[in-house]
């Protein structure tokens, strides 16, 4: 006789713990590989040492855990982006953080994002500035949700290696250029 499993009546409730934020200043000279089967391949590099990692409230520790907050620069970063013909963007991001106290934290995350209806075509279309996506006054923001993971051997930040993190962010587009990528990073706790 089989026993019916009881129906689940509650969510797997998790709350988010804010860890840190980062702003990546994208190199304006993005590498347009071109039209490949299924979409357009674009490689973007971070401008070294101009990209900041910070606690948005400037706290010195993570609320609730007492772990030291992270502050530093993104020493290098690369984003290998596939702007697919169905207006979905996929990318594979790798970067290294150099903290102000000289620790190295290696980070990686995949990205899946919706570019909006006709977004792929609009992002790469030739034309005058008026035809392009985003202006200085009204930039176009592409929302992002990611699942970053971090690795470090620094004893100060080793707690970060143990976490599955979640990033909520955006890519800011001005005249079809990827200008700045901003993320708030949380852990699921």
């Amino acid at each position: 006789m089989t026993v019916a499993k009881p129906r689940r009546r509650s969510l797997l409730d998790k709350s988010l713990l804010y860890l840190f934020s980062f702003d990546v200043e994208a190199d304006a000279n993005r590498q347009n590989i071109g039209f490949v089967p299924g979409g357009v391949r674009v490689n973007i590099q971070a401008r070294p040492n101009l990209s900041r990692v910070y606690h948005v409230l400037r706290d010195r520790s993570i609320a609730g855990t007492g772990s030291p907050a992270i502050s530093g620069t993104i020493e290098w970063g690369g984003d290998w982006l596939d702007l697919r013909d169905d207006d979905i963007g996929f990318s594979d991001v790798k970067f290294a953080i150099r903290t102000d106290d000289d620790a190295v934290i290696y980070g990686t995350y995949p990205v899946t994002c919706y570019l909006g209806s006709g977004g792929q075509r609009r992002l790469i279309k030739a034309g005058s500035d008026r035809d392009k996506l985003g202006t200085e006054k009204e930039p176009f923001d592409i929302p992002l949700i990611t699942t970053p993971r971090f690795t470090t051997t620094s004893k100060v930040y080793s707690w970060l290696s143990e976490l599955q993190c979640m990033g909520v962010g955006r890519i800011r587009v001005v005249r079809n250029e990827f200008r700045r990528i901003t993320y708030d990073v949380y852990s699921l706790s």
Partner: protein
Amino acid sequence: MNVSSKYLFTLQLDLSPTLVGVFPDGRRIDVRYTGSVITDATQYAADWRDSYTALNVGDEGDGSTDDLEWSGLTGKVISGADSVLIRSDSVAAFAGRLTIRANDQFLLNTQLTGAVDLLVQPKLKDFKGGVVKDPPVTPPAGTVDTVLGISFEGATSKQGWAEEDLTQEAFFRYQLLLRGTLVAIGQVKFDDRGLPQSAKLDVAVIRAVARS
């Protein structure tokens, strides 16, 4: 199986390594790549002159990559990154991504992947301080022979409505890189801290025919 190879070009890489740390699976090293690409005239002539002639003397071929021509590649590695893992079993695992800009401005998205067994290196006994430790997580200083897989992605079509620098197209010149099965064979040089410093790799297309 019959396997043969033909030389395409030489990849000369300068590596900027940063040691991330030693983890349970090994030693992880962040690497950034720059460098140059050039087709060596002597090797090119040795591997391609005969087949190129054959291709143009009435051999129409079967449409496979064997029929694709190759006229060499010269350019620069404009960016690249890797997270090299020197595993605790003395295997170096590479998973690099590079962008090559050819002299005609064509961009190639490049992936360099594979594993190098540091214990079976024939030159291991000649390395400075070459005693293998247990666990051997630090390769000895010197050069190690390397065979890696390499693949390329580049524009295969163009669209007139797109931005100007998206209107490049591979045509015949790069088809062999985009369609062929390729390997990178050469040496990686490690310094006495166990960090990779440079690599010289000859990229070749492989032709393999299964025995019937």
